[in-house]
């Protein structure tokens, strides 16, 4: 086991090391940490409010345990969801595993080391979300010291089971996926499958909980009835909740032992199953498939196109074919619109359906300003734009000796992030027009505003990346991992547009058309300015990035 520890230490060091970070990046981390403080306080405030309200409502019915149940269920869901990404990228997408395989390590030892960073990120979330929630629950229920001791232990074991379940499922899938020939495509598919899985579970839970309203009364009156109902998809959440609500009783202790045993068993299973499955899924992942050569296929692909289109197509192809880029860029920007649509579709009675028609009764100005605000936030973090330059990595120099004007290369990259934003805007459009039944004029005004906003967001992200690109990566993940600069454009846009929205909201200006006209004028002005600064930055930096 000491070998495994050493390996883990090396892996953690390599992944979290600050040594390769520039002073600017370090300053960036500090700045972000500073910004997180008010944000964190806000979250704590929310959590405290929710738990307080729930406790006051549920306690008289003897159902306060459901708060913990919900909490543990939610955490399990969040942990599984996050683990899909981190496990795939750490276990399978990271190519560094190839340098560990020839060394005399057992698969479980490598697996152990590789789990460290995904696990650490889970504990980060665990500390931010679960720990304060458990403390607030303790405060509201007036719990004694015993509660806190158990709460800390439960807190420590909560991430284990969701993490292990997710990784075992993924290892199982990858073991078979590895048989396929096109490794890259498989990686992309497995990543997608993970997200489908999450949406699927959500759908299942919702379908299952619908139409049982008549039982609700029974559930509420029965002690812990609600808890059983809420946690029926994930028993460990039930065990944890009982441990903390039936403190000092035999049942409480029993469930505590049960959850500890289950977690220990999970780790054991993880390592033994991992020992059998892991290498089978990982071997040869970096290889690729050779097509059967067909002359016509090649001949068909020979055609002349404008350089701009050719550049754009090359970028899109690289994004779609590189698993890390695909999951970080395409899936991330399309996931939430799709998730939202699925949720609304499967639950036609939800308050959101047909909500758009209510918009007519609201003040036009406020509607459009609110929608614009949401769009700014939604398009603000745009991984396609802030990875525009960095994606090229060491291949960047190819743009320099080829006779393509810098402006054309930059434009093609802007068009790529604009296009990807456009796809999410189209998805939101479908949701808005057909499900929310939003009035056509409101949609049209919003859509025009959003297109310009998206263009500005693309410029902002690209400028940040051009200012401080990460070109020396050896693994595509480095383009995104720990590069918090993606937040900078969002912060910038939120500040600028936040002020504009605020001013317009409080101004005497009335009517949806005039507000839109003013907003559009401002947006066009902003994009002209942004373009000007972008051009200057291109002149200054384009040939000096290497």
């Amino acid at each position: 086991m000491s070998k495994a520890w050493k390996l883990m230490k090396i892996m953690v060091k390599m992944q979290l090391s600050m040594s390769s970070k520039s002073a600017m990046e370090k300053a960036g981390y500090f700045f972000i940490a500073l910004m997180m403080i008010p944000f964190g306080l806000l979250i704590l405030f929310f959590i405290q409010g929710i738990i307080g309200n729930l406790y006051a409502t549920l306690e008289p019915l003897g159902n306060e345990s459901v708060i913990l149940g919900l909490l543990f269920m939610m955490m399990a869901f969040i942990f599984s969801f996050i683990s899909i990404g981190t496990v795939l990228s750490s276990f399978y997408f990271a190519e560094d595993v190839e340098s560990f395989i020839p060394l005399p390590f057992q698969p479980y030892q490598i697996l152990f080391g590789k789990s460290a960073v995904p696990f650490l990120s889970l504990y980060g979330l665990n500390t931010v979300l679960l720990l304060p929630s458990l403390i607030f629950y303790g405060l509201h229920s007036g719990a004694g010291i015993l509660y806190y001791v158990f709460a800390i232990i439960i807190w420590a074991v909560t991430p284990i089971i969701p993490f292990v379940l997710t990784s075992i499922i993924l290892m199982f899938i990858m073991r078979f996926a590895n048989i396929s020939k096109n490794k890259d495509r498989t990686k992309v598919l497995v990543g997608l499958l993970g997200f489908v899985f999450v949406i699927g579970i959500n759908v299942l839970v919702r379908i299952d909980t619908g139409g049982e309203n008549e039982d609700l009364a029974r559930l509420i009156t029965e002690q812990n009835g609600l808890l059983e109902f809420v946690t029926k998809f994930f028993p460990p959440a039930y065990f944890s909740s009982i441990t903390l609500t039936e403190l000092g009783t035999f049942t409480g202790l029993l469930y505590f032992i049960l959850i500890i045993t289950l977690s220990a068993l999970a780790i054991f299973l993880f390592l033994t199953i991992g020992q059998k499955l892991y290498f089978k899924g990982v071997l040869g992942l970096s290889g690729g498939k050779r097509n059967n050569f067909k002359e016509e296929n090649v001949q068909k692909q020979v055609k002349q196109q404008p350089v701009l289109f050719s550049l754009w197509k090359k970028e899109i192809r690289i994004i779609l074919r590189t698993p890390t880029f695909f999951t970080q860029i395409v899936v991330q920007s399309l996931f939430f619109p799709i998730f939202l649509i699925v949720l609304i579709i499967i639950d036609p009675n939800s308050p959101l359906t047909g909500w758009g028609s209510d918009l007519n009764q609201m003040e036009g100005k406020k509607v459009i300003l609110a929608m614009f605000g949401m769009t700014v936030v939604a398009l603000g973090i745009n991984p396609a734009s802030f990875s525009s330059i960095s994606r090229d990595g060491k291949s960047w120099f190819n743009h320099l000796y080829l006779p393509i004007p810098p402006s054309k290369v930059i434009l093609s990259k802007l068009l790529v992030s604009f296009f990807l934003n456009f796809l999410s805007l189209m998805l939101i459009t479908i949701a808005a027009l057909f499900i929310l039944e939003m009035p056509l004029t409101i949609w049209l005004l919003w859509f025009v505003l959003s297109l310009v906003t998206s263009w500005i967001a693309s410029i902002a992200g690209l400028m940040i990346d051009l200012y401080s690109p990460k070109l020396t990566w050896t693994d595509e993940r480095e383009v995104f991992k720990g590069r918090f600069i993606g937040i900078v454009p969002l912060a910038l846009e939120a500040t600028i547009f936040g002020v504009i929205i605020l001013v317009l909201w409080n101004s005497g200006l009335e009517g949806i058309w005039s507000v839109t006209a003013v907003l559009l004028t401002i947006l066009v002005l902003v994009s002209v300015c942004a373009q000007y600064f972008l051009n200057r930055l291109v002149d200054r930096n384009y040939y000096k990035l290497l």
Partner: protein
Amino acid sequence: MMIEINQISKSFAGKQAVKNLELSIPDGKIFGFLGPNGAGKSTTIKMMTGILPIDEGSISMNGVDISKEPMKAKHLFGYVPDRSDIFLRLKGIEYLNFIADVFEVPKEIRKEKIEYLTKSFGIYEALDDHIQTYSHGMKQKIVVSGVLLHDPDVWILDEPLTGLDPKSAYTLKEMMREHASRGKIVFFSTHVLEVVEQLCDEVAIINNGHVQFKGNMIEMRQQFKEDDNLERLFLELTQNE
């Protein structure tokens, strides 16, 4: 004179990589740029191709200054970089098409060229595969094919023979000879003396950022015997591989 390099200098973080380098390369020659690792070969080539900005001095090809009219100059040469792990996620044919689009090669010529070049290098049947799946030599060959697509006047090749199998190396050398015999320039760098001896009409030996010798092969051998410094350099160059 087709390539004129006038007193160029380049330094990185205070360290001078190239000092007042002066070279003129006439038409119709295979020109070898010889030097040990770290001599400044790649830096010079990167300045010639517009990858690195020139600190001092100027470079022109056919009278076109690379710093002043970069787009025009870049149309004149074809450049094979020393690293071939580029565009890995594209298929061979997609890469060639992209390069041909950049140089605006018309469809019919492109078709013919792609077929001729890739068949000569024996990679025609791999064109529908991702470059990622290619061996090192195949990657080198696809890059060379791309460069030759638009039939540039000047070929600039950074260590082009590394990683090529004997047959492909032979093919490439033949192509280089043929190109020079048409009155065009082949400029290539290497750290292997033997390659220069086999192939070059003229050679420049570079060390510590400046030219130590320039002339034809007979002159070079003569100099090696007379000049102590060059002799030491010669040993270094022959020991290298």
